[in-house]
């Protein structure tokens, strides 16, 4: 069974004025289905660029990125949009919910772009919100929800398209430590449900909740540590 994510000698350079910034300098790694991975690193280490590349928001300058066995680097903008819609779910530090739009409609958003009919959209969005523990708050607007609740809506939005991979960029960055732990527990549940979760964090105690920690520095992988063995079904 091929790995879910395979990176081969991935580089990404930016032209920032006259200076060329090398954000990624040849990253090679692979992530299996069902892994719970934390990427750590100081700012400027290239972890955000890596995350954006994994999320098909950014395209590598050189190197290979295979998502689920499919080469991604050469895809068109529309194809990338389709991948983001069907195969990926994003969770952001600042939640990024649409304001003045109910939790339910926020969660429906990916399904709208997938062309799912209205009734099914509503039912699926509602089911996912119930799953993340917000069944009572379907019609609340983001401004009426706490930070933790907003992040749960965001996770529901990431989940609703039934992706295989969830990418979370500092998902606990704006949350207090208690809520952060709840959020990590939620991610753990998802992993146990067979979804692969990759998150970026700079907090060691958050990273410790994951099974595998990849530390980035200056655009390269500094260390790659497996805390927990791969899920049994992978080993089998």
């Amino acid at each position: 069974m091929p790995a879910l994510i395979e990176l081969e000698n991935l580089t990404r350079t930016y032209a920032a004025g006259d200076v060329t910034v090398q954000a990624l300098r040849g990253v090679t790694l692979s992530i299996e289905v069902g892994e719970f991975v934390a990427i750590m690193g100081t700012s400027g280490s290239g972890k955000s660029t890596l995350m954006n590349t994994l999320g098909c928001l950014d395209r590598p300058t050189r190197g290979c990125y295979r998502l689920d066995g499919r080469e991604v680097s050469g895809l068109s903008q529309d194809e990338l949009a389709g991948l983001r819609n069907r195969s990926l779910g994003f969770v952001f530090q600042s939640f990024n919910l649409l304001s003045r739009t109910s939790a339910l409609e926020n969660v429906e958003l990916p399904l709208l772009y997938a062309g799912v009919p209205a009734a099914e959209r509503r039912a699926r969005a509602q089911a996912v919100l119930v799953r993340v523990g917000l069944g009572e708050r379907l019609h609340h607007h983001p401004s009426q929800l706490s930070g933790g609740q907003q992040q749960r809506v965001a996770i529901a939005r990431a989940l609703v398209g039934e992706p295989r991979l969830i990418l979370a960029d500092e998902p606990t960055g704006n949350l207090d430590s208690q809520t952060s732990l709840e959020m990590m527990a939620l991610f753990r549940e998802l992993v146990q449900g067979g979804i692969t979760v990759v998150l970026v964090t700079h907090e060691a105690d958050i990273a410790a909740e994951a099974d595998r920690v990849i530390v980035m520095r200056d655009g390269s992988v500094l260390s790659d540590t497996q805390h927990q063995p791969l899920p049994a079904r992978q080993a089998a």
Partner: protein
Amino acid sequence: MNLLFTLRIAFRALWRNKLRSFLTALGIIVGTGAVIAMVSIGEGAKARVEQSFAAMGTDLLVVMSGSSSSGGARGGGGSQPTLTWDDLRALRSELPSVRLAAPTLRGMAPVMSEEQNWTTQIVGTTPEHFEIRNWGMAAGVSLTQSDVDSSAKVAVLGQTVVQNLFGDQSDPLGQRVRIGNIPFQVIGVMEKKGQSASGTDYDDSVFIPASTYQSKIAPGPGKFIGGQIFVGVDTVRGTERALADITALLRDRHRIATGAPDDFSVRNLAEMASAQAEGVGTLSTLLASVAAVSLLVGGIGIMNIMLVSVTERTREIGVRMAVGARPRDILAQFLVEALALSVLGGLAGVLLGLAAAERLAAQFGWLMLVRSDIVAMALGVSAGVGVIFGLYPAHRASQLDPIEALRHE
């Protein structure tokens, strides 16, 4: 992503900023409204001129006596009678391009019925007059040649005169009216004719035989006609030809030397009417183009607000892209938003313009004429304005880098 869904997103976004959306659309509303109002009123004015010129008779020439001049003060057309009854007979018999000719002597006089009196225009003429002006009877009979020959004291009334002397109730036919002190018998009532372009009421007239007019109402020099000659042109030979023929005949009959000025004038009413219609048309085109400029300004307003909106909603665009919106989805969203603004603005503008035109028309007694092609065009143009001025902001939104957009504060 279907259109209905895109429309819903667009309307929701517009509804969120109700006041701003309204103010943005206001440019289009005013622009379209102004175009519609101007064109409706302009077309109405043009139609009225055309109507009145049709009412006058399309192939009508008016021959007038020359002007008197004493001590340098010139008296104006017709002030010095030069046309004679013999001239009239010659016009009738000698010129094939003249189909009909009728003397038309006019003056104001009070007319009295049993109960009412009304000062109106008395027209002394012959039966041909009505045929030249293409004017039929509503009731009774018209003047006849024998009425003219016998200087009969009979009168045919216009509708306005009937209204004022007899009201709605009694039948004027056979009744007596007095013009000055002379009793006339009413033998007929003319059809309603309406107003001229300059507002003269054609129906405010009483028609009597020319001979009676000259002997009883305004006794004048026997051989001269104290008024004008209306000429109905033979349409096959044309107005130009008739004009030339009449001029040549009268110059010959009046023994005017080559090079000397005419002692009469011939006016071509059809020409005047079409010149007037053209003038009205030019004015309304001018007003409509000024209005069209405001439509353009409205479009720039839309572009401005859409650009602001794209900037404001950069993060939203980023989120939409992250969850799978393709560039064309974003493009469609903003384009439809601009289009919704401009089309709704256009619709409101059309309604407003029609209402304004109606108000103005009612207020000033103008005519308005709604042309559906102009309404369709105004809507089309406002939609076009939406697309043209919405395209750039929408394109800009669709080309945003999702990473940058998500980072946008």
